[in-house]
């Protein structure tokens, strides 16, 4: 029973990571750094709360969250693919913009600077914290499927093959007539949509939007992508690993010999270790971050 509760909590915590890193993998494999994931999620969360609040339907909320993430990804695409602005700067700015815009409209729409009113979500009764309750939430299923679907697209479809080629060697892709910019646009829009769903999950799961509710989850997703070496199955496992560590820390609050802050650091430390190549180096897509060719 202990174990099942642990498992279900881990799954819930992993959801936003899974969505965001599934989207992020697609973007990064096409050569666009996923620094704006945090912003796509935040925008997705806010739009989902807004949509759900006004329509009383979590489904409309989900659609709105998806759209909210896509719009921010489109802005990122415009600046980095079309105008070839520096991806790192644009990514950082997208996150700042998401914080500002959601705060502004939080006050505009709900007159609050901290949170929205309660909005309808998916979770059926709050009874029991077991796996059964989770199974009633359609978003859990979507989150569980997000990474396999992205993996399937990446490795099993012509579009995925082109994404991988474009992110690794755009010159070679161009030489066989692949429209590099168009492939990247599609990848980044999809990444925004999927990450936006991750934001929607947060808002609908908690039945409200709160200021900066993503709280760095986009960066944990980015860490999972790097730690999982840009390979969907491994990225998915990294998300679960990070979520399990977090669950562990919550469950053992106070009782643990290890302070919570050190558990918090785990994803980031592991990412640096992976990048520095202490145990087999994590090598990013060769054209990652280079849009000016």
């Amino acid at each position: 029973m202990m174990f099942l509760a642990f498992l279900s909590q881990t799954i819930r915590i992993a959801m936003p990571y899974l969505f965001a890193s599934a989207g992020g993998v697609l973007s990064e494999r096409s050569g666009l750094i996923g620094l704006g994931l945090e912003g796509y999620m935040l925008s997705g969360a806010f739009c989902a709360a807004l949509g759900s609040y006004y329509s009383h339907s979590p489904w409309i909320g989900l659609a709105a969250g998806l759209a909210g993430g896509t719009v921010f990804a489109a802005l990122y695409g415009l600046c980095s693919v079309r105008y070839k602005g520096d991806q790192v700067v644009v990514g950082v700015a997208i996150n700042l913009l998401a914080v500002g815009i959601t705060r502004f409209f939080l006050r505009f729409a709900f007159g609050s600077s901290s949170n929205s009113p309660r909005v309808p979500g998916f979770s059926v009764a709050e009874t029991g914290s077991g796996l059964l309750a989770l199974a009633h939430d359609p978003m859990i299923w979507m989150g569980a499927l997000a990474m396999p679907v992205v993996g399937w697209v990446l490795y099993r479809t012509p579009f995925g093959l082109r994404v991988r080629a474009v992110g690794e060697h755009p010159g070679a892709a161009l030489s066989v007539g692949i429209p590099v910019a168009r492939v990247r646009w599609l990848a980044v829009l999809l990444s925004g949509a999927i990450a936006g769903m991750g934001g929607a999950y947060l808002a609908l799961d908690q039945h409200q939007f709160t200021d900066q509710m993503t709280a760095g989850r986009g960066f944990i997703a980015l860490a999972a992508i790097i730690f999982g070496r840009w390979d969907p199955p491994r990225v998915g496992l990294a998300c679960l690993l990070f979520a399990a560590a977090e669950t562990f820390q919550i469950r053992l609050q106070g009782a643990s010999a290890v302070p919570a802050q050190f558990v918090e650091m785990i994803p980031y430390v592991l990412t640096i270790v992976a990048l520095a190549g202490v145990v087999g180096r994590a090598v990013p897509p060769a054209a990652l971050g280079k849009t000016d060719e």
Partner: protein
Amino acid sequence: MTAPDGTTPPTPDGAPPLAVSLRGIDMSFGPVRANRGASLDVARGEIHALVGENGAGKSTLMRVLSGMYAPDAGTMTVNGRDVTGWSTAQAIDAGVGMVHQHFMLVPTLTVAENVVLGREITAAGRLDRRGAERAVAELGERTGLVVAPGRLVSELSVGEAQRVEILKTLYRGARILILDEPTAVLSPPEVDELWRVLTHMRDTGDTIILITHKLDEVMAVSNTVTVMRRGATVGRVATRDTSPAELARLMVGRDVVLAGDAAAAPQHSIRAERRAALDVRELTVADARKTHAVDGVSFAVEPGEILGIAGVEGNGQTELVEALAGLREVSAGAVLLHGRDVTRQSVRARGDAGLSHIPEDRQLRGLVLDYSIADNLILGQQHRFSRRGAVDAAHVLENARRQIERFDIRPADPAAPARALSGGNQQKIVIAREMGRDFTVLLAAQPTRGVDVGAIEFIHAQLRNARAEGKAILLVSADLTEVLALSDRVAVMYGGRFAAVLPRAEATKEVLGAYMTGASGRAA
């Protein structure tokens, strides 16, 4: 067809129809005329070698044929159809495929994925991996280009990667295949394998155009040879009717001798000391592919001597010079400056020991393009222009004024950024910096590349003066005329080794051409 030196190209009348016919092709890039009235006739079902020195316009002409460039003038027909100025896509659709010198492969994808990329085989919207692998395997079986379709390209040897490149073009339906310097990167057994594949393809009706400057290859596999020089076609002969010597003569030409050459015959200055200023012993340098770019080369340069290194580019000259300058790790052997071992010493230590270096790529290495002329004139010497951690601005400016005047750099404005200068004036900055200071040994790599005639004369005069002053100079140049005009001895580099070291008197273009193209002297 133009045939300036009287060679009558046998026109293939009545013979099998022409696969390719290019007439009077002009192609310019800004002021550079890469092709001037170039022509090419290739019969169907032959291996046609297109030969010429570096910069003769071979690759440009083939890029025109493959649709990458639209020619400024001239007509192109393929299989009797006028295709002047077509696009890459049209060329591919018509069965013309080009294998570039630098591979266009995605290293993280498999062989099959690379081959089908852009023209994927799908089954119900899905990538049909098995179908792709089967197609590649079948193609490989038919042509002899055997590569395991499921392997990652990053794991392949260079020869295998090249097979994938050829498979890529064949998969797209190429029946006319252009290969640009295909053997430059291959080992001898891989070369033999390539010839086997190409002859097999020819025998089954495909047409192959082979760009090369290695005459042994031409003699070994081609049916017909077209020779280009300075952008124009200078000859077309059947391979069985010619000899390497004749081809070398056509390639190099005899009418291209720089003014002032006669005076350049080495006037051996008095050598005060006979000890070598630069002494290189059994130097071996590994390249990125772990093969030996420089393979056990030994030589010495004495004070007051210019040792010229001739050779087709890519035979290890770049790696040799960089290793001598301290920019590349040496895997074996030793470098001595005035008898002192500097093999493991830094760039700066070598500079302080009297080594100057004119690098072959001034845009990448020789200059910081966004720095001013004055700042560029101290690059590598910055520690000599500093006092207590600060750059001595007055000293830098005074140095700039002096060098600008002495080397006639224009504009004569120390604050102008190097980027704004012409190629010749940029090179003068490098020359001024490296030769306008105390040095005893100079590495001059392609010192006149891309500069105008006036600057060439000036730079040559500087090199001669330096020799007269007793400096030891290692000159590396792809321009044979330049090597012959300046050197006291000439070495020819081929395949990472010195194929020959000749005194100036014995070094004629014909002899050097033979060594450069591998037609004689396999190793030193």
